[in-house]
């Protein structure tokens, strides 16, 4: 069974290699190769999962050592895999949701002539992410980490003919690089502290190290997680990453990429547990991002960007939970999985809407679409209910537990974190209701002439791509797109209940992450009821704003906060002013120092040496007689010395 682990990674990697090296002759079947290999990976994962279920909870961890990568004296890096319950969860999520997204992309990318390449990148993304979660040491994890960064760069910038996409890809890559630096520093620190990178030895011997070192490592890991998971302050790339094709957004937001940061924190739980300061910072980062993403999500009219804000916010929940320690790890992962379902469903739904609306993304030009795309409406709606935490659906179970855990942190911190989480839940309900209402309800704002007769719901696919300015003809998406959405909707509805009832998920993950039952200052029921209450509050407010009143087709100016939120709460302006300008000033002053001080010293030395040599060179005038004089003088000195020695 152990030998199958490598195949998990190998299958999509093979797909990427074949598709990217295969050339145009694979154009016709490329998407199927990619999808089948992703599915193969999922099947292997399922087999391994079944095998794992058959064992005792403590004996479920298996590993596979492939070969020694860098065997050097005092430095051992292995290509080795480790599959435990945590990795298993991720493997199933990545391959499962990934396969569905592959399937969806077949229809979505049907008219893109570079579809084969797109599938190659998707496979590469899966392979890198699987390598990340299956690695048994931090160095190999880093390889996967960088692979994810590369694949995300390639996919976000897939439509590279658009300057905005190219810029967004570059931005994602650069911002991620800051986080990557954190991870590499953390790995170096680990090596100097523990002498190894492997999870086992590092995490086991964490207790023998000073808290300062552990805090440093944990903070560096947190920086890395911030980069990949788009947490404040490295969140700015996520919104722009919407420039990629919608399946990519779904993949990034649901199954891969952004979950890597949470995985890293939970995987390094033993380090974080011993560094309370780093944990506190983690919770603060999570809480801030949670509100940040939610506020941004409220103001965006671009459906994908609104969902991106929501992702940021939901990952904020996970990071917050991961920062809470043993009372939160399990729920972070649980929320991650349920979020994987409903967020993938939401994104695929959004993609489906765009597909039917001539790639229009502005929600102010949607409206009343439920009649035209019923499947999308239902699946999107179920995802919506799941994300806001409607009782009984996935999000309800996972998010409620996180809020509980936040209150259970205890003390003032607990109240603050719990309050923020509750507030976040209210805002989530508000902006998701807004998205829902603006897209599927209300008047049909996409009609250019209100008097025009309604179009046929199922137009020919050829009619889809007329001109960008032609009036859209909303229609349901093809089967290959709707089936994944339906499957994901099932997940959105039932996954939470399946995991949450009877603490199944807790028991599943406990051997790996450890679990402590949190004791919130108020009863769990109170928290659940208040969660539902704020949910109703937020949704009701949104209904008042967007359901009762007509939505203006052009965005009103809005309040200061709205305008700021539309500009992503000025994150780019902040980066520009503080980092870019600051960097420029720093560089300029460094250049000045370099030119005047360093060059001055160097040039001064050179000039003085040159001047001295210029003087000395005069001695070397090339005239034999001059040299003879020095010889003669030397002889005189020699005689003088001899005489002096005799005299003494």
């Amino acid at each position, binding site marked *: 069974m152990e030998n199958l682990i490598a195949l998990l990674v190998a299958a999509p990697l093979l797909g990427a290699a074949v598709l990217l090296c295969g050339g145009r002759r694979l154009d016709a079947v490329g998407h199927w190769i990619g999808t089948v290999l992703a599915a193969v990976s999922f099947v292997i994962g399922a087999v391994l999962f079944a095998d794992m279920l058959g064992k005792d909870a403590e004996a479920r961890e298996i590993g596979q050592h492939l070969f020694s990568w860098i065997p050097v004296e005092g430095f051992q890096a292995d290509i080795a895999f480790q599959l435990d319950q945590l990795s298993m969860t991720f493997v199933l999520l990545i391959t499962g949701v990934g396969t569905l997204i592959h399937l969806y992309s077949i229809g979505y990318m049907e008219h893109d002539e570079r579809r084969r390449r797109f599938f190659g990148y998707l496979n590469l993304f899966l392979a890198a992410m699987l390598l990340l979660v299956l690695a048994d040491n931090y160095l190999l994890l880093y390889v996967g980490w960088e692979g994810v960064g590369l694949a995300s760069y390639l996919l976000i910038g897939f439509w590279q003919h658009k300057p905005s996409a190219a810029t967004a890809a570059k931005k994602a890559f650069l911002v991620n690089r800051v986080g990557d630096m954190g991870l590499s520093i953390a790995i170096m620190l680990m090596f100097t502290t523990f002498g190894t990178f492997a999870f086992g030895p590092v995490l086991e011997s964490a207790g023998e190290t000073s808290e300062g070192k552990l805090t440093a490592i944990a903070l560096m890991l947190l920086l890395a997680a911030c980069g990949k998971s788009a947490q404040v302050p490295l969140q700015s790339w996520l919104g722009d990453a919407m420039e990629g094709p919608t399946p990519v957004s779904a993949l990034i937001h649901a199954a891969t990429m952004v979950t890597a940061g949470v995985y890293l924190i939970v995987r390094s739980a033993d380090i974080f547990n011993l560094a309370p300061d780093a944990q506190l910072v983690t919770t603060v980062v999570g809480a801030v991002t949670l509100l940040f993403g939610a506020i941004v999500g409220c103001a965006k009219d671009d459906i994908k960007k609104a969902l991106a804000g929501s992702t940021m916010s939901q990952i904020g929940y996970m990071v917050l939970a991961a920062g809470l320690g043993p009372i939160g790890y399990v729920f972070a992962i649980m929320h991650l999985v349920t979020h994987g379902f409903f967020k993938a469903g939401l994104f695929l739904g959004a993609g489906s809407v765009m597909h039917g609306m001539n790639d229009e993304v502005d929600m102010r030009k949607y409206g009343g679409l439920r009649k035209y795309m019923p499947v999308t409406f239902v699946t999107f709606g179920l995802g919506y209910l799941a994300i806001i935490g409607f009782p009984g659906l996935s999000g309800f179970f996972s998010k409620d537990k996180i809020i509980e855990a936040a209150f259970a942190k205890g003390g003032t911190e607990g109240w603050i974190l719990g309050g923020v989480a509750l507030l976040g839940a209210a805002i989530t309900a508000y902006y998701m209701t807004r998205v829902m209402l603006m897209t599927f309800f209300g008047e049909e704002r996409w009609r250019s002439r209100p008097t025009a007769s309604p179009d046929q719901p199922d137009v020919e696919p050829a009619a889809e791509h007329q001109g960008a300015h032609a009036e859209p003809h909303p229609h349901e998406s093809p089967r290959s797109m709707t089936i994944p959405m339906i499957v994901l909707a099932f997940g959105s509805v039932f996954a939470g209940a399946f995991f949450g009832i009877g603490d199944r998920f807790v028991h599943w993950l406990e051997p790996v992450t450890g679990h402590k039952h949190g004791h919130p200052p108020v009863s769990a029921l109170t928290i659940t009821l208040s969660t539902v209450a704020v949910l109703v509050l937020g949704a009701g407010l949104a209904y008042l704003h967007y359901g009762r009143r007509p939505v203006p087709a052009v965005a009103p100016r809005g309040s200061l906060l709205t305008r700021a939120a539309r500009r992503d709460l000025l994150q780019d302006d902040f980066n520009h002013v503080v980092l870019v300008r600051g960097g420029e000033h720093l560089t300029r002053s460094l250049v000045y120092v370099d030119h005047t001080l360093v060059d001055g010293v160097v040039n001064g030395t050179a000039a003085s040496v040159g001047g001295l040599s210029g003087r000395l060179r005069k001695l070397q*005038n090339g*005239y034999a007689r*001059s040299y003879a*004089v020095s010889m*003669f003088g030397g002889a*005189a000195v020699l*005689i003088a010395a001899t*005489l002096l020695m005799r005299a003494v």
Partner: protein
Amino acid sequence: MTPTTSVEATTQLAAYTTSTGEAVQFWVLGTVAVIGALCTVFMKKAVHSALCLAGTMIILAVFYLANGAYFLGVVQIVVYTGAIMMLFLFVVMLVGVTAADSLKETIKGQRWLALLCGLGFGILLVAGIGNASLTEFSGLGQANAGGNVEGLAQLLFTKYVFAFELTGALLITASVGAMVLTHRERTERAKTQRELAEQRVREGKHLPPLPAPGVYARHNAVDIAGLLPDGTPSELTVNRTLRERGQIRDVSAEALNDLKALEQRSAARLERTRSGEASK
């Protein structure tokens, strides 16, 4: 006393003691030798330097004799003054009269440095000798007892035989080296008259034969520059060596001076004849 014994006596005398005669000889000839050495250094023309050096060397030969080194004294005269100095003169001749260089120094500070070093070196050397407490004074009477040449020969062919053989090798090497250095193999065929003419045209040098010197057949007239139509002398007409020696005579002025002198002389003679006639 047989002649041989008298020779031995003088030998012993020369070897043991320093007579008053020798002292006088030393001071007189020593002064001349120093003057000769200074002249060697400071004479402007190489020939003069060579002559002065030859004089100094002869005086040194006398000193060798006075010091009981009869063989060396003779060798000094024969080899040094006779052969080496003549070699020098030959080379001076080869290199040419133009090689008379000015004593003007071109390297900045070289002369002062040289004089300073020389002075310091001399003072130190003299101080060293004075410091050496050379009071023991054996004389060569014993060593020269069997004759100076025989004694030298005995040493040369026994104790110093290897060095002697090596000097032989050295001399052979030197003569071969000198031949190699001065011999010039013609690596290309000589240029024909035509090629030389074409080369002159190419280089834009003086094409026709050089103009002849001025011909005033009053003496060996090659050192008189020919006059150009406007009356100025042309240096081109005079041989290059004479030109570089600065031995061109300014004919224009000289001719006028000559004319003036002639007129004066003729006037004086006319006066004389007139007065003679008048007195008659």
